[in-house]
């Protein structure tokens, strides 16, 4: 029997959760509306019926409580998977995540492990209301003690979720909600590459676009469109934000000699700047242009009627690629 099935990303995550719940009695799910309703995105659909109300726990409407109690359960030996309903609702739990979850292992000199997984549907382009479309990854990446991954395909979503749950460290999974219904093949027997490494998805020679999560399909489409202009674009799926596989990104940038980093989050103070600095440190002499960033603006996420002008798209990525060609080295 083949273990390869075509399914949307949301269902790949459901499958990963089901498989981990079945594999380890100490894995628990907790979150708002994840039981009978199956979560607002139906990612936990059917799991409470299958595993019971005590392993798929409907929580009070309290994000700090969800993460704080997950920490307590993890301290006792459980592996809680906490769902935060939307990116913008993670902030009531910010203290528990950054001052408690991230630091507990270090504070206790490694004596207390807190294997909490936080599932965070994130990003925009869903035409929703305020607080439902944000990309807060840089805020968490700046906090030592957290691991942060962002899948871009159903296969990655399945394996990253499983790897996050079995990791002894706290892991935040940024689930690109606009890609929940993106279909792809999921092989539940052969693992995807290590969740904490980047991956070259498309080889190219003229420039690299490095991105993660929801913008990976956009970058692949941009690379395809650039082919018409005789530009050969390499696409790197960053996949893991912390740790950051700067080696793979820099290797690609050194090869193509031009790098564009894209994310939905605002560029100011964002991951793009961190990546630009790291690539410059590793491959400055190989680059023909500065690393360019494509991202959101330094503003609150705008009303959805304007998100098409806020979010990076194919054209914004290609504009950056062309701009990187406009730089001339030396005199």
């Amino acid at each position, binding site marked *: 029997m083949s273990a390869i099935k075509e399914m949307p990303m949301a269902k790949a995550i459901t499958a990963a959760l089901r498989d981990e719940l079945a594999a380890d009695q100490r894995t628990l799910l907790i979150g708002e509306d994840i039981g009978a309703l199956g979560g607002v995105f139906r990612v936990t659909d059917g799991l409470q019926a299958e595993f019971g109300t005590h392993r798929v726990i409907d929580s009070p409407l309290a994000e700090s409580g969800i993460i704080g109690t997950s920490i307590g359960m993890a301290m006792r030996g459980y592996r809680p998977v906490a769902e935060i309903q939307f990116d913008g609702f993670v902030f009531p739990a910010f203290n528990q995540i950054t001052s408690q979850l991230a630091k507990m292992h*270090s504070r206790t*000199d490694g004596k207390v492990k807190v294997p909490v997984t936080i599932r965070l549907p994130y990003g925009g382009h869903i035409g929703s209301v305020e607080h439902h479309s944000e990309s807060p990854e840089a805020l968490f990446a700046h906090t030592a003690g957290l691991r942060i991954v962002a899948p871009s395909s159903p296969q990655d979503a399945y394996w990253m979720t499983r790897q996050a749950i079995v990791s002894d460290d706290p892991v935040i999974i940024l689930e690109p909600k606009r890609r929940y219904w993106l279909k792809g093949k999921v092989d539940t027997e052969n693992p995807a590459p290590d969740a904490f490494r980047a991956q070259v998805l498309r080889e190219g020679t003229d420039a690299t676009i490095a991105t993660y999560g929801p913008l990976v399909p956009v970058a692949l489409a941009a690379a395809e469109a650039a082919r018409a202009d005789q530009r050969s674009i390499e696409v790197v799926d960053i996949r893991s934000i912390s740790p950051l596989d700067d080696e793979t990104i820099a290797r690609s940038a050194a090869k193509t000699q031009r790098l564009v980093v894209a994310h939905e989050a605002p560029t100011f103070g964002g991951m793009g700047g961190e990546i630009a600095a790291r690539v410059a440190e590793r491959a400055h002499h190989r680059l023909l242009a500065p690393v360019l960033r494509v991202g959101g603006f330094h503003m609150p996420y705008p009303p959805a009627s304007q998100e098409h002008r806020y979010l990076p798209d194919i054209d914004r990525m290609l504009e950056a690629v062309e701009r990187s060609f406009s730089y001339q080295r030396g005199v």
Partner: protein
Amino acid sequence: MALLTCRVVISGATGEDHTVQPQEVQPIQLLAPDGKLAENDVYGPYIAALSGEELRELYRYMVMERRLDAEATSLQRQGQLALWAPALGQEAAQVGTIAALKSSDMVFPTYREHAMALYRGIAPEELLTMFRATRHTGWDPRQHNFQVYTLVLAAQTLHAAGWAMGINQDQRTGSIPRDRAEDEIVVACIGDGATSQGDVHESMVFASSYELPMLYFIQNNHWAISVPTRTQSRGPLVNRAQGYGFEGVRVDGNDVLASYAVATKLSAEIRAGKGPKLIESVTYRMGAHTTADDPTKYRSNQELELWEGRDPIRRYRSWLDSTGEADQAYFEQVDAESKDLASDMRKSVLALEPIDIERVFDTVYSEPHRQVEAEKAWLKDYEAGFAEETTTEAGGTR
């Protein structure tokens, strides 16, 4: 409606007693400040059941803690500690409560539960490790069933609720870990100030909704640094429990016997599956908030003197003495023991080895992390560069 017409006092050393609240709920008291034991049908029997040795142990721990506190304060004044948060005045509240628990019950402390920590067998130098800033913590939580101190207050009340959810789940599935007791309950410590934190609210909601085996132990010492309790709550904190649908009891926290009796009764009920309970222990922080604080700026001498008159140790000693449960020789023996504790502690604290930053690198994550490893390697190379220069300089003096 007298409550509403009460004069609002925000804070400030006005000379009045800030420790009187607009709405009073009489705390349970067995031992009056003059050392007389009252009859009490509900709580009295718990005291009657204590042996002479158990009664004397309560006294001994209170004296040990007070001596530890004084020594820590002087170590800080001598520049040997980064900070100290004295528990002076709160000895009875802490000792009475922890003595009522089983050693297998998990405690989630704030940062001032020194008497409780001592009672659980944490060594003074382990307790002071964080305050000397050699390490963030000095003990293994599982070894003592006593979690590490929490400085971002109230965060630990949610960890306590999560731990209690784990207990319920263990019992449900019959998979109690080998190192845990079957009848474990959880104690979440907080002060009057931290009750204003949102996490306490969320914790109490979880505890109530999931019927968690939890005891909330609020030490109302009347001051959150410089802000009086009435700024945290217009009514007695004990009344909060009612809003969440569980029982709360207000106890005289300077009465070690009442503290013991109330905690014994409530913990037995929690153990019997009756859900969470709350204790508001009314006590007084006789010292400063920390060694960085100056209480004369916000509270009056009269108030301090009033509470010195309610000193928990003197009160209990006078009762032990009058009932013959302890004699002069015993008191002298405890005093001598506390002096030894102080001098031993001084030596062991000064001998504490600081952590190496390499160990901090190694504990940020439990699994390898590329950036952490790279930075650790960089620091090693960087510092090795200085070592080479030093060697060259030394060897270069021809």
